[in-house]
């Protein structure tokens, strides 16, 4: 990672010339000039200028793994809140169980949490999710916490380095949804440590060399490391 200073940009801030650079995510072009469209961190990758949002709703992308909370059971589907602007549809064909018509409530009901995958996002932003993938199921037990969706990449770390670190030193089971919901299960002490660590990552999300610092931090009071 290049050791240069990160810069905060606000909407309408001038970022560059459209003839020299390419407008990436979080930007727009007007009269040949690139401006930021939202509050975020400026990042330049190759010739693209991107703005990584600091805050805001989760913007669903196909194939993302998310944690959803069931809002409503319909006759042949469920409506699931995945922290996007819209509720996501989970059809009975997309669950591993054999559900009879009208029997949806037996399997998932209001308030249940599920790990799911975003199946489809169409032009009018209608969302479909699925449970038919590896390791996707209804959540029983454990804790769900919430972080800003923009901080999720830092909690996972590059190629999952940060998350495997957390798992290694706290012996908890952790599932990070791209929508900012994180599921943690393990013994009480372990959960407390994961919570503390995640809040620390959140606070220092924008600093450099975070993974190394987290490792020393977690090593300090780790008991038995697998």
């Amino acid at each position, binding site marked *: 990672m290049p050791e240069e*200073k*990160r810069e*905060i940009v*606000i*909407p*309408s801030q001038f970022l560059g010339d459209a003839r020299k650079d390419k407008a990436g995510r*979080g930007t*727009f072009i*007007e009269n040949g000039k690139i*401006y930021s*469209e*939202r*509050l*975020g961190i400026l990042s330049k990758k190759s010739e693209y200028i991107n703005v990584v*949002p*600091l*805050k*805001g*709703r989760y913007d669903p992308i196909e194939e993302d793994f998310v944690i959803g909370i069931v809002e409503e059971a319909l006759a042949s589907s469920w409506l699931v809140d995945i922290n996007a*602007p*819209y*509720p996501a549809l989970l059809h009975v064909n997309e669950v591993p169980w054999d559900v009879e018509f009208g029997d949806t409530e037996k399997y998932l009901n209001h308030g249940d949490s599920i790990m799911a995958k975003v199946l489809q996002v169409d*032009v*009018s*932003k209608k969302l479909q999710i699925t449970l038919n993938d590896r390791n996707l199921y209804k959540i029983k037990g454990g804790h769900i916490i919430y972080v800003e969706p923009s901080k999720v990449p830092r909690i996972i770390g590059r190629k999952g380095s940060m998350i495997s670190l957390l798992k290694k030193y706290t012996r908890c089971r952790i599932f990070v949804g791209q929508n900012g919901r994180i599921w943690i299960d393990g013994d009480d002490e372990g959960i407390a440590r994961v919570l503390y660590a995640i809040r620390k990552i959140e*606070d*220092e*999300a*924008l*600093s450099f060399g975070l993974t190394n610092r987290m490792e020393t931090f977690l090593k300090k009071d780790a008991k038995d490391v697998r």
Partner: protein
Amino acid sequence: MKSEVKLIDNDGKRLDGRKPDELRKIKIEAGVLHRADGSCYLEWGGNKILAAVYGPREAIPRHTQDPLKAIVNARYNMAAFSVEDRKRPGPDRRSREISKVISEALEKIVLTEKFPRATIDVNIEVLDAEAGTRCAGLTAAGVALADAGIPMKDIPVACAAGKIEGQIVLDLGKEEDNLGDADLPVAIAPRNGEILLLQMDGHLTLEEFDRTLDMAINGCHIVSDLQKKAIMEKYQSVLEVE
């Protein structure tokens, strides 16, 4: 209108000691509410305003949805204790009008095509009022929208100018608004100077109107800098951890 009170003294100073082209004192703070997606607290002279943004979220009831873009739903409300005589709570003709014009001004700058079928709710709560609440409310809403991380083309800003005792002045105070000749609230997108809101109360000649508009737009740019500073101040701190 001839009034008993002298709004401008012999030195050219106004009632509160301001020069004709001087703004009242403005304080802006972003991100003050935890439950809202974005928020802003603003003090503008004697005005105290809280703005909160929720969404984008699915528009309910369903018939209000637009299948192609989001709707921006601003709600301007004055607290019962915001004025000298108690204001009867609830929406009235005045606040519904202001809600409508602010909604339309904000809709112009938010990138609504990104969120079809959704709504962005903006609540503007006037806690204390002293003339120019619609400008202050819109300014606060702009900061709250940016704070909520909503994609938009610009941060909207508003400021008023008017005429008192035959003279064009910036940002009318309470007595000036009540006893003056004209009031012209203006909201702009400061980057390209596009006008988002323009209303007028009272009478101005065409030449006076042009001068008043120019003065109000100049005021907008000053307030815009304060807005940007407030947002930067709130988020600069996230960079300084180490």
